[in-house]
Structures are given as C-alpha cells and as structure tokens.
C-alpha cells in the first residue's frame, strides 16, 4: 500500500526516530511502513492519522480510489 508518511514527516522536520517515539513504535516499524514493506494495522493507521490531523485516506492509498 502506498502512503505519504515520509513526505508528511519531512514537512514537520521529524526524523524516523521522532515519529517512532510519537507513535510508540520502533524506528524499524516507521521505516517499514514508509517503504511499503509493512501495512499498519487499523489502530496504528488511525493513530498516524490523528498525529498528522488528516483522514486516513489522505495518508494511505490502496490503489482502489475512484474519480
């Protein structure tokens, strides 16, 4: 699944370690999500969405969006 996590993180000038600490996950987890190697669970996706104050679908794209 594609996502804009890296861009959103860069806009806030956060390192992967900063974001990992805010999400209470490891740096590897942030890296794996950013690179699309791991799709986060729904609770973690909501946590990410709340942290960036954006709807989930503006961060994650499953490629099924129409229009």
């Amino acid at each position, binding site marked *: 699944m594609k996502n804009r996590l890296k861009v959103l993180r860069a806009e806030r000038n956060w390192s992967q370690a900063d974001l990992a600490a805010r999400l209470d996950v490891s740096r590897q987890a942030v890296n794996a999500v950013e690179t699309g*190697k791991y799709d986060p669970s729904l609770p973690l996706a909501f946590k990410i969405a709340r942290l960036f104050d954006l709807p989930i679908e503006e961060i994650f794209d499953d490629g099924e969006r129409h229009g």
Partner: protein
Amino acid sequence: MMESAMDESERGRGFAALAGRVVLLVFAGLGALGGAGFIAGFLAAYHQDPGGTLSVRDVLILAGGALFVLCGLYGGWRAIRSLRATDLAAGPLTPREGRNRLVMVLAGLLGAAISLVLVLHHGGPADNPLALFDGPLSPAVAIVLALVVGVLVPALSIYWHLRVIDEQEAAAYSKGALIAMYAFWIGAPVWWLLWKGGLTPAPDGVLIYVTTAVIATIVWFWAKYR
C-alpha cells in the same frame, strides 16, 4: 531534515549491510571460541605428558591459534562498532526499543548462563563438543535448568510479547514462526520416512529443534529489518 541511516535502508542497502555485520559477528565469535578451544585442548594434551617440552613447531601452532583468536576478537569488535554506529545514526532509541534491547540482553545472559552450566556439568567426554547435547546431566542440574527454561523463559517471552514489541515486530515474529512450523511439519516426517527407507541416519531431535529455531530466527530478522 537530516538523513538517517534508517533512511539509507529505504534504498535497499540497509538489510544487506546489517545482515553482513551480524554474520561477521557470529563467525568472529565462533572463530575466537574455536581458536580458544584449540589452544586449551593443545595445552591440556601438553600437560598430560609430564616430561614433554614445547618444540618450535608447537609454539608456532599455538601462535597460529592465538592469532586466530585475535583475528576473531578484532572482527567481532569491528562488527559491533559498525552496528553501533548505524544504530546511533538512526537516532535515539524509542522507549519501546529501549525495553526491547533490555530484554534481548537479559535473554542473551540467560542463554550464556544455561550454556555455561551445560558445559561445566555435562557428563559426556570433554573432547566431544556434541556431548554437550548428548551427555547426561545430574538430576539436580537438570531440574534447575528445566525450571529456568520452563518458567523464566516463558515469563520473559510473555512480557516481551505483551509490553515490548510493536505490531511490525510481532508480524515479523509470526512470519518466522509460521515458516519454521512448516519446515518442522514437513522436514521432520520427510527425514523419518527416509530413515524408515534406510536412506538416512535416524532423525535427530536436537538437530531438528535447532534447525527449526534457526529458521524462525532468520525469517524474523529478515522480516523485521529488510
């Protein structure tokens, strides 16, 4: 934003470099231990001959063994330094990672303590490294080790699963467990069938256990850091 070593892994080099350093660390450790064991065995044989003297050849062999140990220690030190540099470049540990690191250290110390007790108390011949697994243990040592493995290890594992790891590591661990389980479910009966057909030696429980654990660990490591 400063680019971290973790960002570097996004370009596909991170896992290979990390795996290479870990492999170097393992081989360096095994090399140093093997060299030390060789020197100890050589000196033990020398002491069994009361009138014996060390020839120039013996000294050269011992020096070769010592050099082997030193190379192993140096390689291990370089690997640890490199791993530490990468870790520091990736930024500070999150609290969860700090707890994870602590559990890993505790698990390592526990494993080292169990290995030490096995080495010191196994009843097999001292010159056979496999006697560590096949030699008998005294009932008291066996009970203590069984309690450690049967009570302490599960307690540490439950804490690790419930309080330490995040969902990405849990998924990596599950992937490793799944593949190891299939390897066990398929590999063990295949070996048993070949043994029944007189084609292989009898299935070895220790070897099957170790292989299963190694497969689970490799897949877990790959899934976590790739």
